[in-house]
């Protein structure tokens, strides 16, 4: 126990003296009576009018969370009430989650936002209670009779403001669910509340603009097909410059065996593009018959943070394109929430994808029966299988300038239970890998703090707060093992961890797993390598002397 742990008598004294909602010092008030305060840095810009118009979403207008009047539609209460009722009928899980919680508090200190802010409304139990208290007011009759005992409240504009604030301080990471004895998925409660808020035009532009772009152009940034091709070809040229190998990707090629889909961040952003270079080198190395679509040009699915219907629509696009191109199966890149959508929702939303074949690795013959419904294989599974069968020629020394640790991305770890595959790859492609503390990895991994569409620049303060538990765990391995590289398999991580590291742990860079694979791959016909894919000098290869090849 910490030497600073308080004694029982001290705790009692503190409890007696300090006002607290726990013992009724706010006895004249309820816990929800303390109003939320929006100020710069703690709210995301709302959806632009043209974005909402493009999507056909409700209540396009110019507004800000700091406004007193949010210009809600006249019948907003009815819309929310009916919206909640219809969803309770549609989703048994929601009803179960709202009814089953016994307020045991096991989740309370598991949320990275609670740990980073100390705000009680960021305890998952209380966050869910923001909705539950309204649900109880409108619903079961017995509870209604026992009103006053049931902790119910009326749906007011203040409640909407509170929802907007706290359901945007949840990244849908599901760490709380791991500790819940009932398995209540608070992420699904957040998803449902955000869906309800969208019905009355209370929203976030950083989520809706990518949704609209993806809906129209096919990817979050709205990159049109010719630019999409140009970007990837430009990366292919870089690869040729660094390695002397022509990777030669194809686009929209009918009859290819595999359609490869990755988050578009890998095509336009730094450091995602280096991960893309890793994929391209890998596919060339094994001679995979694959193509990339310029229409299904996005693996990410911000529909998941918007509404069930939008998530379904954006997910369907990938399968439509697979059908159009006549491929056998889908290979998916390093992404987080894309995999929660594919792994947990796709089959009942758009599946089963009977027109595709159960994926079989053309190199090793491994049949991915775990993907028999979705026909989509995660690239970490695919590569781990290649390495297991010794099909890759790797030189891990080429990553000796990197001392790595691995960040489990929430949705891949908790959403699909993938823990070992990325670690197995990492151990094969580099010589220095150190795990973070046990309670901060695998299913207990801490979120980057920017997931679920909260990666907005104007939200930086809150993101830094929410990401602190993750950053703190990285700092421990940085101090203990001189770790300088945080490896991850999620595009939002690749976008959001660099500022998080830059703030909390300067000197730690963020890498995609397949970027390290790309560094380590010994390609046929390659030229002498002295730098990695970022053009950083590789330790021991400075003069091109120590290369075995």
């Amino acid at each position, binding site marked *: 126990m910490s030497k600073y742990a308080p004694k029982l008598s001290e705790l009692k004294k503190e409890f007696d003296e300090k006002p607290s909602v726990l013992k009724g010092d706010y006895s004249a008030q309820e816990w929800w009576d303390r109003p939320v305060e929006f100020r710069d840095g703690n709210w995301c810009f709302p959806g632009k009018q043209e974005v909402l118009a493009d999507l056909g979403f409700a209540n396009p207008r110019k507004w800000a969370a700091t406004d007193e009047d949010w210009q809600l539609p006249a019948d907003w209460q009815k819309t929310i009430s009916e919206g909640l009722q219809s969803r309770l009928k549609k989703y048994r899980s929601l009803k179960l989650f709202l009814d089953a919680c016994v307020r045991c508090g096991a989740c309370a200190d598991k949320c990275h936002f609670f740990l980073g802010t*100390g705000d*009680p409304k960021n305890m998952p139990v209380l966050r869910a209670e923001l909705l539950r208290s309204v649900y109880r007011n409108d619903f079961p009759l017995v509870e209604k009779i026992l009103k006053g005992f049931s902790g119910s409240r009326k749906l007011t504009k203040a409640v909407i403001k509170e929802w907007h604030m706290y359901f945007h301080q949840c990244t849908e990471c599901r760490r709380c669910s791991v500790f819940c004895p009932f398995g209540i998925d608070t992420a699904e409660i957040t998803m449902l509340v955000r869906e309800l808020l969208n019905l009355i035009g209370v929203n976030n532009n950083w989520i809706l603009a990518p949704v609209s772009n993806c809906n129209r152009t096919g990817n979050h940034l709205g990159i049109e097909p010719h630019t999409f091709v140009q970007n990837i070809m430009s990366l292919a040229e870089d690869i040729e410059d660094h390695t002397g190998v022509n990777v030669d990707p194809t686009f929209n090629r009918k009859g290819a065996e595999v359609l490869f889909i990755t988050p578009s961040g890998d095509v336009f952003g730094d450091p995602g593009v280096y991960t893309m270079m890793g994929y391209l080198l890998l596919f060339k190395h094994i001679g995979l018959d694959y193509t990339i679509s310029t229409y299904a040009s996005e693996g990410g699915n911000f529909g998941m943070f918007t509404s069930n219907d939008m998530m379904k629509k954006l997910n369907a696009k990938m399968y439509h394109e697979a059908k159009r191109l006549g491929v056998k199966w889908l290979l998916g890149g390093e992404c987080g929430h894309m995999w929660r959508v594919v792994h947990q929702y796709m089959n009942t939303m758009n599946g089963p994808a009977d027109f595709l074949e159960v994926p079989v690795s053309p190199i090793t013959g491994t049949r991915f029966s775990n993907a028999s419904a979705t026909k989509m294989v995660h690239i970490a599974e695919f590569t781990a299988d290649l390495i297991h069968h010794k099909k890759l020629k790797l030189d891990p020394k080429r990553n000796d300038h990197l001392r790595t640790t691995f960040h489990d991305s929430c949705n891949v770890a908790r959403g699909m239970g993938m823990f070992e595959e990325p670690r197995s790859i990492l151990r094969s492609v580099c010589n220095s890998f150190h795990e973070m503390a046990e309670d901060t990895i695998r299913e207990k991994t801490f979120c980057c703090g920017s997931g679920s569409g909260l990666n907005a620049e104007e939200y*930086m303060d809150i993101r830094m707060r929410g990401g602190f538990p993750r950053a703190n765990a990285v700092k421990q391995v940085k101090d203990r093992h001189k770790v300088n590289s945080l490896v991850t398999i999620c595009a939002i991580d690749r976008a959001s961890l660099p500022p998080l590291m830059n703030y909390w742990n300067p000197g730690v860079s963020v890498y995609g797993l397949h970027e390290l694979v790309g560094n380590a791959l010994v390609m046929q016909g390659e030229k002498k390598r002295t730098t990695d894919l970022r053009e950083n000098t590789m330790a021991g290869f400075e003069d091109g002397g120590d290369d075995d090849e």
Partner: protein
Amino acid sequence: MVTQYSMKRGWTEFLEANKKAILERWLDCALALFPEKMGYSTPIGTVFSGALEKILSSLGKRENDCKEALDDVTRILAVQNFPPSKALSIFLEPKLILRDIMMKTKVADTLMQDAFNSRLDALTLEAFDSYMRHREKIYQLKVEEGSRRMYMALRRAEA
């Protein structure tokens, strides 16, 4: 009983003798800044307890070697929801703690108290600098994030 401290090394000895008591109260004040008091074993609790101890130890020394610890504390404070005045108030807290302890232990050494207080004032100003550096860092991160997101577009524009 009145405790005697030598004039020359009084400050260091006094701090050493009362370090635990000062630190406990100081840490409590710091953790109580948050909407609900932050737990001792949380990441913030752990960082605060380590850093405040280092800062306190350095107060007794001639050389100031607590820059890193000071950064660890202000880095957390600079992104919280409370205003700078409230955040930095924790560096003034030890003055009150010290006064209480001196009264309790019946040490009446105004010279030492003055020295301690002025050292804390200097520390508070250093904390202010550090806090501001972190606020500026936040704005810098916003700019850098924008460029990273547009990496390929900027690369083409520059080509």
